[in-house]
Every structure is written in structure tokens, then in C-alpha cells.
């Protein structure tokens, strides 16, 4: 045990004493490793930046049917439970999914017709912008009074601007229909729970609970929606009785759990005969780029690793030959096979460690320069050349493993040195 430790110390002293030669070995390793790190940094940075951009926008996760279909609630619930689906809600007929809004203040004249989109808690679009979706699943009675409490909605920025309203503002919602030759109106009161930024939605849209969409569609179809009646003084949701048969929806709003599942979901729906709009093509492009870069990187890496293995092995071999007198002397001193093998192995590990550290430092400088160079086309925290600590650790472990592998045979040679053959000057 003591001899193993002594061998490490002596190997280190020898390494330090031959500082110039050791520096050459370290530089040699860094010369191979630095370009690889930069190359991988660029591959990782570019692909991460592109994927991040895709991932950051929930639009890329959205899947919607191309043509309107007839989806039952049970079918949609089953789709929502699919392991690749993060969120799914039914849509009503888009032609019926509009509402005229105006601020509740009596003197206000602005009004705007908005499209209605269904929403519910955990809606990825709202979650992405840090907004809470309305939670009610049916109209609630007003607190302490007659009628119903205002229904929470999320307004798009353009709609909110046109109406001049803010979060917590109260709105009147009005639905018109032509029924029996007359124009009829139904009303409900709404409250703005949140406002969706322009980047997320550029049209006049209100995100509302599904029951409101269903009520609006039913009313336009000439049916009564008694649970929406707010009491005397408000236009009533009157009409025919609700039909017995199950409600069918023409479409849905659905989000995949992550980018990789968009394509599997597309295939899943295609298997059911449903053609869907997805961003699968863009995602596939980025994935394809990542695969191609990986392949190129793997090929360059393999070539570099072979060269490194050969150069390290020949260097270690030459070192053992050059130092055979020292090694023979250590053998004579009483060092056994294991400590003698340690001698070249320790030195190879030192080169691996210091070479990786140097390469990491040079990589850091290069990466900084590259990121500065492309700073204009990058947003926020994005980097075109980027590695994580894990990558550098992996690089060190691989280099270390290769170095030890390369030094193994020279180490065996070192241990087989016959002192009597080497200790004398010829």
C-alpha cells in the first residue's frame, strides 16, 4: 500500500521534473480535445437553441383537426388520458363560438365581438404565460345576492385594449340569434381573470370555460339554457328544450406533452382517420439536424480518439523505454509489479486531467468568442456554443479512460523490465 502511494508520488515528481515534456503532452491532448469540445458545444448549443425556441412556444405542441368531425365527450376524455397528451378540450362550432363584449360600466360605449376558445385549469398556453385559467365548470350563484356570479374569462391583449379593460374588470357578454324571424339576445356577466399577451394571440379572443361555449352554441341553435339565466332584469336564455341525444363536438384543442410526442400523436390520430395540423414538420427538421450533427460528430470523434490512442500509446511506450533505467532502479529498490505499472498510468492520468482542464479553458474562450460573434441573432439567454458541466466531466472521463487504455501496454512493459538489463550504461 505504501509502495503504491510512493509510486504515485514519484511518478508525479518525475512528471513535474520533466515539466517541458509534460507540457508538450498536455498541449498535444488539448490540441485534439479543444476542437472537439467546440464542435460539440456548437452542435449542442444550436440544437438546444432551436429546440428551446420550439419548446418555448406552446403553439408547437398544439394539435388541431383539419376538418370538423363528430367527437363524443367520451372519445375526447379518452384522448385527454392518452399518455402523450398534456391537455385536451372539446371545441364547439366556430361559427357559433362568438360573443359581443362591452364593459359593465353604464357610460361605456365600446364593444367588440370576440371568438370564444375553451379553456380549463392547466391550459398549456396560459400556463406558459404564467396565467391562471378560470376554474368554474358551471355558473355559480352570486355571492350573497340574486342571480349568478360573473364568469371568469381570459382576454387577448387586442380585445382588452379595444374594450379599455384590465384584470378584474367586469364585462357584459351578449349573444344574438335569429329565432322565429325575430332577433333575440341573451346576456351574461363576465369578469376578466387575466390578459393574454400579444405574442400568444393577436386576434380578439376570449378564453372561457367550456360550459359557456356550450351555452352559446345551444342558444344559437334555438335551445333554452336555463342554468345561464341571471334573474330578472337580464335577457333570458330561452328556447326549446335540450335534445336527449349525446352532444357531439366538431373539433378539439389539444396539446402534446412534449415535442417528441407531437409526431407520435399525429400518427395516432392518422391511425383513427383524423387528419390534424401539427408543427411536426418543423420539429422533425430540428431532430433531423440534431441526428445529422450527431453522426458527423461521432465520426470526427472516432477518428480523433483513434489518433489520440495511437499517439498516447506511442508516447507512453517511448517514455517507458527512455526511463527504463529509472524503472529498473525502482525495481531494484523493491518496487513490485503493481507500483511499477502505476508509474506510467499515473503520468497518463495527469496528462488526461491537465489536458482536459486546458482544453476546457480554451473551449471557454472560444465559446465566448463565438457567442459574441452571433450575439445579434440570439435572444436572451440563448448561446450558439454551449456545454454543460456534465459534458466536460464526460470528456474528462473518456479522455482518462482512453489514456489509461493507451498506457496499459507500456505499463506492462514497465513492470517486466529486468533491472539487470537496464541499470548499466552500455
Amino acid at each position, binding site marked *: 500500500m*505504501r*509502495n503504491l502511494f*510512493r509510486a504515485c508520488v*514519484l511518478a508525479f*515528481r*518525475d512528471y*513535474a*521534473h*520533466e515539466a517541458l515534456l509534460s507540457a508538450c503532452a498536455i498541449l498535444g491532448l488539448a490540441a485534439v480535445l479543444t476542437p472537439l469540445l467546440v464542435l460539440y458545444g456548437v452542435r449542442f448549443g444550436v440544437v438546444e437553441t432551436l429546440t428551446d425556441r420550439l419548446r418555448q412556444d406552446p403553439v408547437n405542441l398544439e394539435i388541431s383537426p383539419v376538418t370538423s368531425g363528430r367527437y363524443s365527450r367520451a372519445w375526447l376524455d379518452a384522448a385527454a388520458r392518452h399518455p402523450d397528451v398534456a391537455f385536451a378540450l372539446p371545441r364547439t362550432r366556430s361559427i357559433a363560438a362568438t360573443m359581443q363584449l362591452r364593459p359593465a360600466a353604464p357610460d361605456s360605449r365600446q364593444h367588440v365581438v370576440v371568438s370564444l376558445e375553451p379553456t380549463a385549469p392547466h391550459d398549456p398556453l396560459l400556463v406558459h404565460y404564467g396565467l391562471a385559467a378560470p376554474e368554474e365548470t358551471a355558473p355559480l350563484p352570486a355571492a350573497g345576492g340574486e342571480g349568478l356570479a360573473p364568469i371568469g374569462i381570459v382576454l387577448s391583449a387586442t380585445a382588452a385594449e379595444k374594450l379599455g379593460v384590465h384584470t378584474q374588470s367586469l364585462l357584459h357578454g351578449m349573444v344574438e340569434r335569429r329565432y322565429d324571424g325575430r332577433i333575440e339576445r341573451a346576456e351574461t356577466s363576465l369578469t376578466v381573470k387575466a390578459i393574454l399577451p400579444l405574442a400568444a394571440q393577436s386576434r380578439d379572443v376570449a378564453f372561457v370555460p367550456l360550459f359557456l361555449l356550450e351555452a352559446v352554441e345551444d342558444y344559437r341553435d334555438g335551445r333554452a339554457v336555463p342554468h345561464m339565466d341571471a334573474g330578472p332584469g337580464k335577457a333570458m336564455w330561452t328556447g326549446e328544450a335540450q335534445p336527449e341525444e349525446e352532444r357531439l363536438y366538431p373539433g378539439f384543442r389539444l396539446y402534446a406533452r412534449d415535442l417528441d410526442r407531437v409526431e407520435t400523436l399525429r400518427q395516432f390520430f392518422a391511425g383513427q382517420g383524423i387528419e390534424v395540423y401539427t408543427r411536426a414538420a418543423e420539429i422533425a427538421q430540428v431532430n433531423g439536424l440534431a441526428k445529422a450533427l450527431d453522426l458527423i460528430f461521432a465520426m470526427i470523434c472516432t477518428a480523433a480518439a483513434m489518433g489520440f490512442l495511437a499517439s498516447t500509446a506511442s508516447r507512453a511506450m517511448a517514455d517507458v523505454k527512455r526511463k527504463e*533505467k*529509472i524503472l529498473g*532502479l*525502482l*525495481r*531494484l*529498490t*523493491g*518496487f*513490485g*509489479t503493481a507500483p511499477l505499472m502505476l508509474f506510467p498510468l499515473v503520468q497518463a492520468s495527469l496528462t488526461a486531467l491537465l489536458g482536459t482542464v486546458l482544453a476546457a479553458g480554451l473551449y471557454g474562450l472560444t465559446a465566448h468568442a463565438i457567442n459574441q460573434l452571433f450575439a445579434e441573432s440570439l435572444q436572451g439567454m440563448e448561446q450558439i456554443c454551449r456545454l454543460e458541466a456534465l459534458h466536460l466531466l464526460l470528456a474528462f472521463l473518456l479522455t482518462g479512460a482512453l489514456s489509461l487504455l493507451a498506457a496499459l501496454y507500456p505499463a506492462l512493459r514497465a513492470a517486466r523490465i*529486468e*533491472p*539487470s538489463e537496464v*541499470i*548499466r*550504461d552500455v
Partner: protein
Amino acid sequence: MDAVFSIRNLGKSRPGGFCLHLEALDIARGSLIAFAGPSGCGKSTALDILACALRPEPYPEAEVPGLFLFSPTPGHTTDVLAAWRRGGIDALAALRLRHMGYVLQTGGLLPFLTAQENILLHCEALGMGMSGQERALELAEQLGISHLLKQYPDSLSVGERQRVAIARALAHGPQVVLADEPTAALDPWHAANVLHLFSQIARHMGLTIVMVSHAPELAQSAGFSLVHFTVSAEGEMIRSRTRHLPEA
């Protein structure tokens, strides 16, 4: 007789038809022995066999079987041939480290250690601590190299290096010191000087020294007894033989 080494009928042949035959070799405890003979007669080979650094072969034509006993201290005897058969060079490493010192012709110092670290090499390997350190300083004083201890070998003269090598061979308190022409690289005046110091210190410490010598007269004047190697040509074979059995 109390012998440190007791050898019968060992051999070592080299390619090219040379064969060394250690017919009978007893080396008495505390004696100073110099191997003498023409160059190429296998003196250094014999020394390496004694150092347990070279595996001997039993001499094929001998009637008495080969024997190699090493007793560093009275009563403790190791059968070296058996140890070779058991574990090769590793089995003998500890024995060599503990009981032997070795001085080479030249350049036996590790270039990456200072003179002092070189001297303490065996002491460190044995984990001796302070006792080794004191003896090392004392030896450096006796050999006149106290002022060189912080220097690296490449800044020392050949003579200074040999003194450092001698100090290293002695510092860990071995029972036997083997030296391979330790003064060959020195001029006659320095050679005599170093050799006298060497034998003086060895006598003082009660050591056994076996030395290969290129200058028998010098060795004798420093108090060494000579053991001669005789070379004879036997057909294609060149045979070098030695026989040394001091009286009991």
C-alpha cells in the same frame, strides 16, 4: 562459518555461448569482497544474482544440486531459489529493500529527486521516519556531501553523485551492500578516496560488502578480499568459474 550468502552450483548462460558458473561461493558476515577478473567474465551478472535481481539457473553438469541461501542476520535464512520459484522478482523485492543496498557504476540516482530525497529513497519505502533521516545526515557528513543535499543530480559532479549513491545504499541500515564498480567513473585519486570512505563506513556499521572491481589493487588497498573469476574456452563455450570458500 557464518555466511551471508551461501551458493553452490548456480549458473547463468547468455546467448552466444557464454556460461557463468558459480561453483561454490560463501561470503562471510562482515567481510569486504571484491569480484575480480577480466571484463566480460560475468562479475556483474554474479552481483545481480546475489542482489536477487536476476534469476539464476541450476548449473546443468554439476553433481551437487544448486543452492542459494541468504541470511541477512544470523539465524534468518531465506532459500532464494525457492523464492524465485514461488513468486519471481516480486517475492524478493521486500527482502532486497529491507536488507540490501545497491550502488551502481554511474547514474543510479533518480533525476527528479534531490540528493537528500535520493538518499532517503529506501528509508521512505520502508517507512522509517526520523531514524533514517538522522543516519542519512550523518552519512552525508561522513561522505562530505552535506552541502549538496538540496541539489538535483544533474547539478552534481560524477564523484558527488557516487557519494550520494553510496549514502543511499547505506541510509536504511542494510546488512549487505552490493556495488557494481562504484568508482569506475572517477579519476584514480577520487576513486581511492571514495573507496576508502566506503570501506571505513561499512566496517564501522558492521556491513558485508560485495563489490565488482575493475582495479583489484585499489580494492585490496582499501581492505577488500578478492574473489577471482577464471575464464576458460571449452570448444564453442566460454565458461567463467569462481570458487571461494573461506576457512571457517
